Structure formats: structure tokens, C-alpha cells
């Protein structure tokens, strides 16, 4: 691998791959691939960087999974995409795969897929065939935790998967209606993990479950530290504790702590970034005040600093969805975000400055950075 970065971009109308030079100064936009197909997530495998996986569907056709073994040059369709068991009592069918997660480093070939309606699926053969994870999908409380019609405008979702790098059996899910769920037996059993996470939209503001976890991320150097961007604030949890701390309380009041994404620093467990959106009144979900900015904490969420150098200073109404803000793990860390207006913005200096590196793409759903 080189120092060059590739950005895997999933959009509502296809996929693009941006590749940089080693300095991350110059970017080339390659694509489209799968033009017209809805690409919810396009991911590179850190265990084998030439392996890509894409979750696709179209407005007409049902969902499928496409796999590339040559960094996106050619693709093969899964022979058995994620699907709920035929004849199951709930009668669910996968509308789309929302999140793809490469398996633990000790399990080459294993992938996980999180879907809408909410479900979890596992592949042990590099994404060719997928099995329903019965421990979750047939859990006695699944319809209480995640009613199929109880989620986002695009459907109820399992919004993210995080795997403990020390233990393949220990995983977390971010969900849109049960908050965070945890398993310590690789999906056989699950328990909510939501203590002190607020739920502004339910009669009980601190329920056992019901929260909308937009995204979770484990600190790479300290997987006991979980960052969460929730529908109702920014949180941090240090295991084995069960009680989340609302670190978003330290955000400026006129900005708030609502957003979709959270990005941890690859080498410092005190540092993370968020990209706030307006969650007031009717929830515009755009940059507060029309002034886009990332916010960085370097003290575990005790304080936040605004990073808006390079972004529009007015009339910049960005919406950055859950999977569309990421880092490249470099030193310094490169940061990338894609907007629903089809723009990609990059920072090569840990958010100190930003510049637009692509525009005029379709609505961006996901941006994933990987080494070339």
C-alpha cells in the first residue's frame, strides 16, 4: 500500500471512487459504477485492501451485494444476498442493506450486513452467501426493539456495526429504535446498552431501549471507549461501565449536539470529530445557521473546538448522513465528508482546514477512506 488514499463513495445514483496522490493534494474522480443504482454503502476490506463490497438496490429491483477482488475493476454479485428466512412469522423481506462491516481480523472472509427492515446477516465466504443471524433476527423482543415500520424516512435500520478488535465475539449495533445493542457471543444473545441516553421523543426520556443511535465508533487504541452520535446528543461510554455520558453538553448552545456521524482519532482516544446539524423545531438537519463546521474534542468530550476554515461562511446548508463522514487513519489524520448535495470536502490536517475535492455528484450516502 502507498500513502495515497481512495475514497469509496456510495450515492443514491451509483458509486464513485476518488483517488489521491501520496500528499492527498490532488484527487481524481473515477466513475460512475452501477449508474442509477442506490449504493447505500461501499466498503474496502482492511484485511485485504483490494477487496471491496457494495450494498446496492434500485428503485425497482430488490437488494443485492456486489463484491470486487480487484479494487473495483470488476464485480461479482452475491449468489445468496441477505434475506430473512422464507416463511418466517414476521414476513419480513430485506429492502436494502444499510451497513457492511468487514469481520474481525482473525476471521478472513467473514462479513456482516445490517439491513432495513432491521436485521443482521453474516457471510463466511467473502460475501458470496449470507445467513440470517437468528440470535437477533428471531429474538423474542425483535419487534419491540425494532418494529419494521418504526424508523427513518428510508425505513427502520440497523445503522451500524462495531466489532471489538480484541474479541470477535464482542460486537455492538447502532439501531434506529433500540439504541445500542451488545453481544458477547457473536450474535447469539443481545442486550440493550442505553443507560442515560436520552430519548426526547418518548414519554420516558431514559428508557431501556427506544433510542436512535445514529452512529457508534470504538476508539481504535482503546476499544473500551465507545463514541456515539445519537439522535439526542453526543455520548461517550467507557466500558465496563454501562452508563453513557452526554459529552455533547459541552457543545455551543447555538450549535447543539445533534448530528449523524462521529469519527474517532486513530491514535488518540481523547480525540473525535462530529459534524453538527440543526435538530431544532422541525429538524432541518442542515448545518446550523447555514455555516458548516466540524467540531473536534481533544479531551474526551469535555470541550469542543470549531473547525470551519475553508467551508462556506454563509448559505452553506450541508446535510452529511450517517456513513458520509470518515477519516483515513493517516498522520496527520485526513478527514472526508460527503453531502446530500453531492459535494465531497476533505481536510489533510485533522480538520484545521477544508476544501472541496468533488462536486455535482448525486446525493451522497457514504464515504469510506482506504489506502490505495
Amino acid at each position, binding site marked *: 500500500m502507498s500513502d495515497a488514499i481512495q475514497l469509496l463513495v456510495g450515492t443514491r445514483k451509483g458509486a464513485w471512487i476518488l483517488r489521491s496522490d501520496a500528499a492527498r493534494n490532488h484527487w481524481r474522480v473515477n466513475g460512475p459504477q452501477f449508474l442509477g443504482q442506490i449504493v447505500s454503502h461501499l466498503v474496502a476490506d482492511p484485511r485485504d485492501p483490494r477487496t471491496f463490497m457494495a450494498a446496492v438496490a*434500485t428503485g425497482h429491483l*430488490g437488494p443485492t451485494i456486489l463484491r470486487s477482488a480487484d479494487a473495483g475493476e470488476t464485480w461479482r454479485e452475491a449468489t445468496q444476498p441477505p434475506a430473512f428466512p422464507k416463511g*418466517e412469522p414476521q*414476513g419480513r*423481506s430485506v429492502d436494502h442493506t444499510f451497513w457492511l462491516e468487514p469481520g474481525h481480523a482473525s476471521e478472513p472472509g467473514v462479513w456482516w450486513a445490517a439491513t432495513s427492515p432491521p436485521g443482521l446477516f453474516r457471510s463466511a465466504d467473502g460475501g458470496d452467501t449470507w445467513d440470517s443471524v437468528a440470535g437477533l433476527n428471531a429474538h423474542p423482543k425483535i419487534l419491540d426493539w425494532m418494529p419494521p415500520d418504526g424508523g427513518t424516512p428510508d425505513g427502520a435500520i440497523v445503522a451500524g456495526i462495531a466489532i471489538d478488535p480484541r474479541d470477535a465475539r464482542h460486537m455492538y449495533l447502532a439501531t434506529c429504535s433500540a439504541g445500542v445493542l451488545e453481544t458477547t457471543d457473536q450474535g447469539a444473545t443481545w442486550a440493550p446498552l442505553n443507560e442515560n441516553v436520552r430519548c426526547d421523543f418518548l414519554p420516558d426520556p431514559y428508557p431501556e431501549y427506544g433510542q436512535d443511535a445514529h452512529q457508534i465508533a470504538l476508539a481504535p487504541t482503546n476499544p473500551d471507549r465507545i463514541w456515539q452520535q445519537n439522535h439526542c446528543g453526543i455520548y461517550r461510554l467507557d466500558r465496563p461501565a454501562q452508563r453513557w455520558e452526554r459529552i455533547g453538553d459541552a457543545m455551543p448552545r447555538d450549535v447543539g449536539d445533534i448530528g449523524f456521524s462521529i469519527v474517532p482519532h486513530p491514535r488518540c482516544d481523547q480525540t473525535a470529530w462530529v459534524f453538527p446539524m440543526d435538530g431544532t423545531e422541525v429538524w432541518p438537519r442542515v448545518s446550523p445557521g447555514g455555516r458548516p463546521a466540524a467540531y473536534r474534542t481533544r479531551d474526551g468530550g469535555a470541550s469542543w473546538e470549531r473547525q470551519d476554515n475553508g467551508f462556506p461562511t454563509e448559505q452553506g446548508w450541508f446535510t452529511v448522513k450517517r456513513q458520509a463522514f470518515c477519516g483515513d487513519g493517516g498522520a496527520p489524520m485526513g478527514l472526508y465528508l460527503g453531502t446530500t448535495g453531492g459535494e465531497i470536502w476533505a481536510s489533510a490536517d485533522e480538520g484545521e482546514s477544508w476544501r472541496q475535492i468533488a462536486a455535482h455528484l448525486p446525493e451522497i450516502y457514504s464515504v469510506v477512506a482506504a489506502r490505495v
Partner: protein
Amino acid sequence: MIQVLIPSQLTSYTGGVTRVDAAGATVGSVLDDLDARYPGLKFRVIDEQDRVRKHMRLFIGRDETRSIAAPLGDGDELLIFGALSGG
């Protein structure tokens, strides 16, 4: 033999062919026959609970069906369309 009209959304599976012959006595078995030749095609049209996907429409001749159990006879035409899925 059943003649099947393939919509543009599925021609990536059929190599660009828009009319194919298939065998089967029901909509489901005809789609199974197509899927054997064009792997993956059926799941894009029919979900795992055997329902026709929301924005796909199937016609036997001029009669629409949403059932994979609908019978087909020799010489029937099965028309598959993708329709009205948004902007």
C-alpha cells in the same frame, strides 16, 4: 414454452436480451428457470417471502398478477416491467 419480456432493469443479467423463452407452469417456476440461466435475476423481482417487489409488475398477457403461483400455459407471454419507483 413461455415467452418472457425482460425489462431494461434486468438486461444486465440477460446480456442485453429483452425476450427469452423459459419453461414452467407457474410464474414462480418460470422465474426459477430464468434464475438458473441468469443467476440472481429472480431475487431482484421476487422477495424472500415470494412477494413481487413493490415496484415490479408482472403481466400474463394483459392480465396483471402479483402471485408467483399464477398458472401459465404453453404459448403464454409473461411480461416483466419495472414501474414508478421515484425520481
